[in-house]
């Protein structure tokens, strides 16, 4: 009885023992390691905890992806009121119900925000960028991926107010044109990462402006910007020596001149994705392989003109290659693979090799590849000269490898007639 009354006493006073033992500062410190859900749970324990758990200092980094559609305007407004200047990083990825009004409040109240992600918030429009540029001058990273209402106005506003911007993602904002990009380039010289997948209205001029004003660019993704021509890539290569990631997939107007420029200036390049650039030939890759020694990942999907020569040069010049995609390169033969497998990169680094839809590759290639000890995955879809036996031999040498091919599972051999007893199990027991 005595202990019971003591417990009640503890509840009544809101002085549970943990609160007595630990000072508030330590509790706050502990709370600062919790995620959103746990914090909200803690906030329901007692009045004291409520105050501590909802303290703005615990809410510096918030990711609401797990809630998505449940997140609506009032939620954002409450958060911005609670966090105020504490908020550094907010991710609203997939929160489609969020609109302009609440985002304006956010920009007004949380002026120290550095990283904002509104990926797939389809309702937000240019007004949010205007508000951000007016109030949040510390903004460094902004992700507007998949917000179709965003136009050039946003980029112009950002270039006025957010000069510290280093990373911006405007993928699939199809209303953005070269004018917006030019304004951005002039206003935000610290830009290091520019991602604009599927923005078909960004032309060569936009890219040239970026190259001219933002010489710190390291990561550049222009996938699907089909109007880009060689002069853009040339300017990029000349002006941005730090470039190490470049994606030009589906820019089908590019020719070898781009590759030559990259070879000449961008020697730091580690990732190059040029899927679907069908005009690239061996000559371009030859130059590239000679100078870009740090290449680690290359996606050459659909570069239909390249032959074994490219592979030979890559094998000699780029010892760090880990990930090589040669899908749909129909001229590749066993000879190319042989050179690749003899190269230093093959023995040490090569982990993923994609050869699907290379019709000339045969089992001999697999024989050569047995020397690639690090190979983890190989794609062989639609290589019709590859046989089951060849894959089996490869597996013998590299037991951990994942081989992807269209082969049916082997049918188990028919069971011997003696394997089954004549009686079912229950009869046997009886």
């Amino acid at each position, binding site marked *: 009885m005595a202990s019971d009354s003591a417990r009640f006493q503890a509840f009544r006073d809101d002085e549970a023992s943990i609160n007595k033992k630990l000072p508030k500062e330590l509790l706050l410190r502990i709370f600062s390691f919790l995620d959103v859900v746990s914090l909200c749970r803690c906030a329901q324990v007692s009045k004291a905890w409520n105050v501590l758990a909802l303290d703005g200092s615990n809410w510096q980094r918030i990711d609401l*992806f797990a809630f*998505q*559609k449940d997140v609506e305007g009032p939620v954002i407004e409450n958060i911005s009121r609670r966090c105020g200047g504490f908020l550094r990083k907010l991710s609203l990825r*997939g929160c489609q119900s969020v609109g302009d009004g609440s985002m304006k409040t956010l920009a007004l109240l949380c002026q120290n925000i550095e990283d904002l992600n509104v990926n*797939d918030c389809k309702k937000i429009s240019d007004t949010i960028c205007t508000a951000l540029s007016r109030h949040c001058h510390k903004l460094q990273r902004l992700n507007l991926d998949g917000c179709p209402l965003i136009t050039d106005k946003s980029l112009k506003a950002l270039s006025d107010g957010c000069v510290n911007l280093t990373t911006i993602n405007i993928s699939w904002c199809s209303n953005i044109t070269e004018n917006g990009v030019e304004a951005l380039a002039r206003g935000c010289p610290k830009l290091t990462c520019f991602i604009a997948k599927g923005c078909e209205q960004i032309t060569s001029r936009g890219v040239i402006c970026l190259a001219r004003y933002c010489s710190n660019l390291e990561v550049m993704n222009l996938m699907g910007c089909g109007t880009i021509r060689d002069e853009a890539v040339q300017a990029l290569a000349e002006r941005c020596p730090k470039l190490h990631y470049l994606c030009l997939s589906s820019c089908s107007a590019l020719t070898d001149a781009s590759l030559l420029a990259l070879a000449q200036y961008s020697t730091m390049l580690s990732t190059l994705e040029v899927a679907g650039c069908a005009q690239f030939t061996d000559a371009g890759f030859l130059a590239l392989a000679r100078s870009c020694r740090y290449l680690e990942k290359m996606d050459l999907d659909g570069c239909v003109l390249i032959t074994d020569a490219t592979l030979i040069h890559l094998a000699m010049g780029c010892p760090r290659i880990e990930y090589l995609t040669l899908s749909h390169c129909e001229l590749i033969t066993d000879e190319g693979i042989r050179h690749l497998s003899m190269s230093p990169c093959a023995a040490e680094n090569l982990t993923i090799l994609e050869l699907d839809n290379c019709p000339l590759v045969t089992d001999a290639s697999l024989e050569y590849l047995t020397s690639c000890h690090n190979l983890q995955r190989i794609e*062989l*879809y*639609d*290589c*019709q*000269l*590859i*046989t089951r036996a060849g894959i089996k031999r490869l597996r013998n040498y590299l037991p951990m490898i*994942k*081989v*992807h*091919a*269209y*082969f*049916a*599972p082997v*049918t188990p051999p028919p069971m011997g007639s003696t394997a089954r007893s004549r009686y079912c199990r229950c009869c046997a027991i009886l």
Partner: protein
Amino acid sequence: MAHYETMSERICKDLREIVLASTINTPPFKVKDFAIVTEERGIYNKSPILFQEAHLGLEAWSVDIIYQYVCSKIFPLRKHLARGKTSLQERRNLNCWLIAAILINPQVTTFWNMRRNLALQAAVAFSVELEFSRIVLTRNYKSSDAFTYRRWVLQRMFLDETARCVVFGVTRSLFYGELQICDKVLELAPDNYHCWIHRQCCMVIFDMKNVIEDTLREEFKFIDLWVQRHTKISNGYHYKQFLINFVNVNKRYGPQSSISFVNNSVIVPRSACKSVEDGKINIDNFWEQLGNNDFYDCSKTFNMWICVLWNDLANEDFKDKLFYMHENFWLHRRFILYMMFSSIYYNLGGKLDVGNEVIHVKSTLRDPNILFTVSNSNYKVDEPIFINHARNKIITSPFYKALISAEKKLVQKLTFPSNHELIRRHCSWLNNFLRFDVELTSDS
């Protein structure tokens, strides 16, 4: 096994691409039909998807693997999807997996329901869904789920004002598309109950959109031809009765607007004009024969309705002997007679539609299955249907007499030894049910 998972994933994606491309409607990408092809088990390292000359096929060896894979992926996400708690990527993947799953096994209603969820969450376009269910129907033409899903999609399209996909021309082409699909499926299986139901439902769905006024004529023409070709399949009669009821019940074909419509599109082309009793009675003058011209004026809908029925009765062709050997013919005839007399009776029995409104039809008469209810009863009704003075009025009318003599003649003409039993039943029905005084003549 991990290897098969990536392979299945790839195949699912390829299938989705093909279905998407098929929506564009240009010949090289339009999928004509889908089938699962039995071939030697994957000897070559080649995709099991075959797509040649617009025929889509999936090699049988891959079906097990793919189906197991997609099921293992789909079901864990079912509840999340229903509650709208899936990410964009998950919805995209689900779309791929569901396409493969349904193509392989369209009998699973859960898959279709999940696609409904996807469509409601705007993860898939309605036009793609129509195309997809069409492809499914080319293989599994008896899949009731596929038909139901199509109807659901159509209704959604009409409900969804924001989609703005439904303008008049589009609606019309959609409707013709549905009819085409029905025609194709019916060629494969004339007794496809689900397809007939679908056709009926389409009439009702598109009726709201004001499309079918001129297609109704086509439908009557179609069903007449069809019934002549497939005598033994009762679905056709069922549909015909549906159409008759449809014209009757539907308010859109009410008094003013539709008199000319029914006259021009239903009666005239059908009746070019057959008459009972060697041309003595035709449609134009039988109302005069009923002896009531005022009546003619005040309930035109009713008149038209009778005309439609009359046509059907008079318009039976005497081409094929087999036609009359089958019970369907007689049952249909009874249906029409019954409809005719019931509506006359209820009109004369104090419910004349003076206000030019659609006549009141007893609810049982709306039941398209009346043909069978009538045939299943044993004809020996204790209480005759028409017992009051209205009945006398009918019986004494020249219209009634004309009908009696027409039926008599028909019975005499069509009595063969092989269908003696059918005729006997018909006569006893006429006697007991409509108080017709038709004797079965023993000659022939």
